[in-house]
């Protein structure tokens, strides 16, 4: 078990990037891939892409993010990669439908974003589960599925 207790930098920091680049050439950078929601955790047990069992235990003041470097030493580095959140974009038919859709999503405690006239729902579970809940709104045309986009 590799215990990781602090964020030593971010892959976008110039000096860190330089060292990571050198290690990558030798295949010495390991990646931990996390869902965006899981980056809020301060403790988690995960495996890197190379199968190393990692125990992350951070101070509450620290926050995992895309590119967070948890280990950077001679011969090895561990970097966090955040999975992009998938969003379901919904276009309401009119004002009344928009109100109803907003109320409906709020009642289900879904994470949403607003973009112009679209309401975007974060997919924290299978897409089918969300579509099943929205079936009535989609079938009678109160809302239409615009697209599904990836976004951080």
């Amino acid at each position, binding site marked *: *078990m590799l*215990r990781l*207790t*602090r964020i030593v930098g971010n892959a976008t920091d110039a000096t860190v990037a330089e060292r990571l680049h050198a290690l990558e050439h030798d295949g010495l950078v390991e990646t931990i891939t996390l869902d965006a*929601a*899981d980056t*809020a*955790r*301060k*403790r*988690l*047990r995960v495996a890197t892409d190379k199968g190393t069992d990692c*125990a992350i*235990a*951070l*101070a*509450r*003041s620290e926050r995992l993010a895309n590119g967070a470097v948890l280990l950077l030493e001679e011969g090895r580095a561990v970097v966090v990669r955040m999975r992009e959140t998938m969003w379901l974009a919904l276009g309401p038919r009119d004002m009344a439908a928009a109100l109803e859709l907003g109320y409906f999503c709020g009642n289900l*405690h879904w994470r949403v974003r607003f973009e112009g006239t679209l309401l975007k729902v974060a997919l*924290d*579970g299978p897409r089918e589960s969300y579509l099943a809940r929205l079936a009535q709104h989609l079938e009678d045309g109160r809302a239409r599925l615009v697209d599904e986009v990836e976004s951080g």
Partner: protein
Amino acid sequence: MAETVEAVAETAEAQAETAPSAARVGIGGPVGSGKTALIEGLLPLFAARGASLAIVTNDLVTQEDAERLQRSGLIPPERVVGVEAGACPHTVIREDPTLNIEAADLLEAQLRPLDLILIESGGDNLASTFSLDLVDYWLFVIDVSGGGDIPRKRGPGIVRADLLIINKSDLAPHVGVDLALMRREAEEVRAGRPVLVTNCRTGEGLDRVAAHLAHDVLMEV
């Protein structure tokens, strides 16, 4: 000399800010499913592992669960804090967990170093989930007397919890529940996330719960 003491204090404070914080584990589930009993069963197991614990309980308008644990003799009373949610229990563990974060921060500041803070939600419905801004890991406790069909009904609490516990296993034959089927259906809806069966009154299965927590968040304490 005074400067030295201050310097030591500052160093200790700085170390505390960068040292790993105590793991925060949420325990949710319907009213009467056995959340407090689970905590009572886990306390001796974690004590045996040498883990330093504190507890935040949530009740609607009372301190009932906090007082039960404070009287239990299983943990020093000052290590238990009660939060009165005053509203839907899930509001204070998900939408605005400020009250619980403050309670956990207070315990951590007063009792440092702590290994684990258990945060027990008030009894709620199957839609209840924890904000990961509040906890690092969360359990959802259901029981066989609530009905063998509960896992089939899914619900975010059942599906998304890091660990699902089916409690009161001994009651299954008395309430007409096929426990093996209930467990199998729970595993099916949880897509590989773990499911454990317990009887908190006898302690059956609690060692496995403690082992899971030790592995996943306490890192083998």
